C-alpha cells in the first residue's frame, strides 16, 4: 500500500463541492415537500369512502415500497419520455424522491392518524364541524406530532437517497464528486470528503426537523 494522499484536486474542487451541497439540499427539500403532500393526501384518500381510491393508494404504496429507487428514477427519466413526458434531471429527481418518500410517508402518517382517539373526532363532529375540518383542524397536528420522529428518520433517509440521483446526472453532491474523481483518480480523498459532507448534511436536516418540532409540536401533553 503506497497510496499517497493528495487533497489538491479536492481543494481545487471545493467550491464546486460546496455548491453541489446546495443542490443536494434543494433536491431533498423539494422531495420532502412533495412527499408531505403525497403523504397527507394519500392518507385522506386511503381512508376515503370511495373504494377505488383506497385501492389506488394501497396499490401505489405497495408498488413504490417494493421496487428499487434506482429503477423508479430510471423509469421516470428514460421510460416516460417514450410516453411523451420529458423532464430534466432535477425535476425528475425531485419527482422520484417525492413519490418514493411519499409512499413511506403515507404509511407513517396513517399510523399517526390512527393513534388519535375517537373522542377527538366525535368532539369535533358534535361541534358541527364536517369531516374534512375535523381532519385538518383536529386530527392532523396531533397525528403528525405522534409520528414526527419516524418521519424525521424517513426524511433523513430521503436526503441521503439524493445521491442515487447522480445516476441521471442530477446536480447534487455525489455527481460532482464523481466528476472530480474521474478527472483526478483521487477516489479516497474525494469520497472520503463527501462522506463527511453527508454526515454534516444529515445533521443539519435533523436540526431542521427538531426546530420544526419545537416550533409546532411543543404543546404540553400528559
Amino acid at each position, binding site marked *: 500500500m503506497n497510496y499517497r494522499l493528495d487533497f489538491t484536486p479536492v481543494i481545487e474542487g471545493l467550491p464546486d463541492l460546496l455548491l453541489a451541497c446546495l443542490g443536494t439540499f434543494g433536491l431533498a427539500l423539494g422531495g420532502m415537500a412533495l412527499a408531505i403532500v403525497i403523504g397527507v393526501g394519500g392518507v385522506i384518500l386511503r381512508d376515503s369512502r370511495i373504494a377505488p381510491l383506497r385501492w389506488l393508494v394501497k396499490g401505489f404504496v405497495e408498488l413504490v415500497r417494493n421496487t428499487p429507487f434506482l429503477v423508479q428514477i430510471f423509469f421516470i427519466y428514460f421510460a416516460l419520455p417514450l410516453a411523451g413526458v420529458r423532464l430534466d434531471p432535477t425535476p425528475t429527481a425531485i419527482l422520484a424522491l417525492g413519490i418514493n418518500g411519499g409512499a413511506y410517508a403515507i404509511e407513517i402518517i396513517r399510523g399517526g392518524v390512527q393513534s388519535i382517539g375517537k373522542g377527538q373526532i366525535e368532539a369535533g363532529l*358534535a361541534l358541527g364541524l364536517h369531516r374534512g375540518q375535523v381532519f385538518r383542524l383536529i386530527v392532523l397536528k396531533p397525528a403528525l406530532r405522534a409520528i414526527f420522529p419516524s418521519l424525521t428518520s424517513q426524511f433523513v433517509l430521503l436526503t441521503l437517497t439524493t445521491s442515487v440521483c447522480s445516476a441521471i446526472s442530477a446536480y447534487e453532491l455525489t455527481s460532482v464528486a464523481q466528476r472530480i474523481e474521474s478527472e483526478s483518480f483521487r477516489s479516497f480523498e474525494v469520497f472520503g470528503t463527501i462522506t463527511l459532507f453527508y454526515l454534516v448534511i444529515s445533521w443539519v436536516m435533523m436540526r431542521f426537523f427538531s426546530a420544526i418540532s419545537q416550533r409546532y409540536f411543543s404543546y404540553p*401533553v400528559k
Partner: protein
Amino acid sequence: MSDAAATGAAPADAMIVMSHVEKWYGDFQALTDINLAVRKGEKIVLCGPSGSGKSTLIRCINRLEDYQKGEIRVGGTRLGDDARTIDAVRREVGMVFQHFNLFPHMSVLRNCMLAPMRSLGASRAEAEATARALLERVRIHEQAEKYPAQLSGGQQQRVAIARALCMKPKVMLFDEPTSALDPEMVKEVLDTMIGLAEEGMTMICVTHEMGFARQVADRVIFMAGGAIVEEAPPQDFFSNPRHERTRKFLGEILHQP
C-alpha cells in the same frame, strides 16, 4: 311512557322528539322502541346499568350514532341521513363527554373559538369575546391561554362545557360528565351544570349523581336492556319506583359508599 310520544303527537314546545327509535349494532339491538319528548327548558336525567343504552340514546340525538327505525326530531328538524341536516342539528346541540375530549394542541381559548369560527362563521373577535365570556362563566377565564394538559380534570370538563356553550346551543347533552373525575372535582362540574339548568337550558344528562337529579331534574328516566323502563319526576322516582329493576338499580347505586 309519556302520553304525547305514545300518541305520536309531541307537545308544541318540544325540543327533542324521539318516536319508536330502534337501533342495532349488527345483530345486537341497542335501543328498543324509544319514545321520548323533551320540552324546551326541560331537564332530563338518564340513568341505568352499564350497557343499558344511555350513551347510545343521547348519541343518536346529535347523530354520532345512526338509528335504523323510528324518527328523531330536534327543534322541528327531522334528523335523517343528509349531511346538511346533521350539521345543522349538531350546531344546535352541545355535547359534553365523559373524557372531556378537549383538543390538546390548542389553548383553552382556541378550543372555545374553533367551532364558532369554522362552523358558524363567526369573526375572530366575536368568537374570542364569546369564548372569554363563557370561560368566565365557568370560572376558568384565568386559564384561557393554557393548554388542556395543564388543567385538572374538573377544570378541563368546565372548559368542555364552555366550549359547547360557545355554539349557543339550544340543547345540551351530557354523557357521564363527572364519572372520570376525582371525587373532589365532581362538585365544581355539577355546580356549573346546575347553574346552566337554572338559566333554563334544555338538558339531557346521563349521570348517576342522584343528588344532582333530585335538585335539577324535571324527569328521571331509567333505562335497562336498551329500553326506557320507567320515567318519573325525581321525588316519585326515588321514593316510589314502580319497577323491580328500578328498585334493584337504586338499591345498588344509593348504597355505594
